[in-house]
C-alpha cells in the first residue's frame, strides 16, 4: 500500500464519522478525562497538603512520587489486573475488562503526576503568600483553598501533563481493559491492534485523531490559562 493511499483512507475515515470509529474515540475520551478528573479531585488537595505539611518521611514520599511519575503503564496495568482478577482482593466486584478498570489504572498513572506537580506549585506559592496568609489567620491546612485557587493557572499545566500521560498510554488499558471491540477498545489499543493486523489506514486515522484531540485540548488549556494569567497578573 502506498503512503499516499494510506493517508487518503485515514482522512476518509475521519471525515466519514464511522460509528465504530466514533465509539472508540468517545470511549478513549471518557476513560482519560474521568481518570484525570478523579486524579485532580484527589491529587490537588493531597499535593497541597504535602507542600505545607512537615513530618518525618516527607522527603521519602516526595522522592517516591517523583519516581512514580515514571511508572511504566504496563506495570500499573499488571498491578490493577492482579487486584481485579477473579482471585484478587477486588475480584468479586467483577470490574476486570470494563471501562471502570481502565479508569482505575489510569488514575494510578496520573495521580503521582498531579500530586508531585501540585506540591511544587503550592510550595512556591506558599513561599510568596506565607506572611500574609498567616497574618490573616490562615495557618497550615486552612491555607489550602486559597493556594489552590491562586495557583489555578499553574495547576492547569499539571492536569494537562496528567492528561497527556493518560491519553498516550496503551499498556495499562490493554491489560485491564482487554481491547474488547465496542466495549473497551480505545484509540491507543486499536492502533496497536490494527497495526499488527496490517490495517494501516484505520491505525493512522486513529493516530491523527488522537494527535488532533491532544493538540486541541492543550491549545484550549494554554489559551485559557494565558488569558487568565494575564487577567490575574
Amino acid at each position, binding site marked *: 500500500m502506498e503512503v499516499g493511499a494510506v493517508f487518503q483512507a485515514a482522512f476518509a475515515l475521519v471525515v466519514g464519522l464511522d460509528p465504530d470509529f466514533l465509539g472508540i474515540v468517545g470511549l478513549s475520551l471518557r476513560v482519560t478525562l474521568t481518570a484525570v478528573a478523579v486524579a485532580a479531585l484527589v491529587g490537588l488537595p493531597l499535593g497541597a497538603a504535602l507542600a505545607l505539611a512537615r513530618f518525618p518521611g516527607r522527603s521519602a514520599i516526595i522522592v517516591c512520587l517523583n519516581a512514580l511519575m515514571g511508572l511504566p503503564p504496563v506495570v500499573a496495568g499488571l498491578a490493577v489486573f492482579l487486584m481485579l482478577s477473579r482471585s484478587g482482593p477486588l475480584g468479586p466486584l467483577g470490574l476486570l475488562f470494563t471501562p471502570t478498570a481502565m479508569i482505575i489504572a489510569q488514575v494510578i498513572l496520573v495521580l503521582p503526576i498531579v500530586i508531585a506537580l501540585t506540591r511544587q506549585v503550592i510550595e512556591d506559592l506558599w513561599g510568596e503568600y506565607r*506572611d*500574609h496568609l498567616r*497574618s*490573616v489567620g490562615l495557618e497550615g491546612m486552612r491555607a489550602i483553598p486559597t493556594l489552590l485557587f491562586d495557583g489555578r493557572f499553574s495547576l492547569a499545566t499539571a492536569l494537562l501533563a496528567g492528561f497527556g500521560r493518560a491519553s498516550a498510554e496503551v499498556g495499562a488499558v490493554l491489560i485491564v481493559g482487554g481491547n474488547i471491540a465496542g466495549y473497551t477498545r480505545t484509540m491507543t489499543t486499536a492502533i496497536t491492534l490494527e497495526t499488527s493486523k496490517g490495517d494501516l489506514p484505520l491505525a493512522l486515522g486513529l493516530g491523527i485523531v488522537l494527535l488532533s484531540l491532544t493538540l486541541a485540548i492543550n491549545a484550549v488549556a494554554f489559551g485559557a490559562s494565558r488569558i487568565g494569567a494575564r487577567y490575574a497578573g
Partner: protein
Amino acid sequence: MLDATSILPLTVDAVSFSGGGKLLLEPNSFVIPAGGLTVVLGPNGAGKSLTLRLCHGLLDPSRGAVRWADASSGARTLPRRAKRHAMVFQKPIMLRRSVEANIAHALAASGISGPERKARGLQALVRFGLAERASQPARLLSGGEQQRLAIARAWALRPELLFLDEPTSQLDPAATRQIEELLTALVAEGITVMMSTHDLGQARRLADRVLFLHRGRLVEDAPAAIFFAGPQSAEARAFLAGELLW
C-alpha cells in the same frame, strides 16, 4: 474603638529571638500603649522586622513573652476573631485576584460573613481611593497602589494596632508621600501604628516615639522630639549623623 476591651497596651517582656544558633534579637522590653505612631528605627539587620513579626505573632519568641491587655487576643495562636492587630509587609503580598477580592479574602479569613464583608470591602475601597480599581487584578497595580491596597486590606480588618514593615522602602518619592499621609490619617482616626524604617527623614516626619535598634538590641526608647534633639547613646548619635551603617 471597637469593643469595650482593648488589646492595648502591648507589653513586650524580655523578648529575644535566636535562629540558626545565633542570637538575632537580644532580650528587649517595651510597651506600646494605645495611640500614636511608633517608629522602629535602625540600620539594616538591626532586628526591626524581627521585632514587628514577634509582636504580630508570625514568630514565637525564643525567650520572653508578648502580652496583650486583652488576653483573649494572645498572638501566639492567632485566634481569628479575637485578633485585632494587622500587618503590612515591605513587599506588598497581592493575591492573584481582583483588588476587591483581595480585601474580601482577608475579611473572610478573619471570619467576617457575607453582607458585612461586602460593606466593609466597599468602605475600604472608597476610603483608600481604590473604588475605580475594584475589579482590576491586584497584581497589575503600580507599586504604590499595591501598598495602598495592602493597607486598605489591613484597615478593613479594623485593627487597633497596625504593624508596617518598611512600607515605603520600595516606592518612589510620590508614592512614599502618599503612604505617609495615609498613615498620619490613620493615626488621627485612632489606630495605633508601629512601623519600621531605616529612612531617617521618614522617621522624623511621622514618629511620635522612636524605638532605636542596633544589632538586635533596643538601644533607645524615647519620644521622637527628644530622640532627634539629643540621642542618649553613641550608636543613635552615629546613626543620626549618617555614620552608622551596620
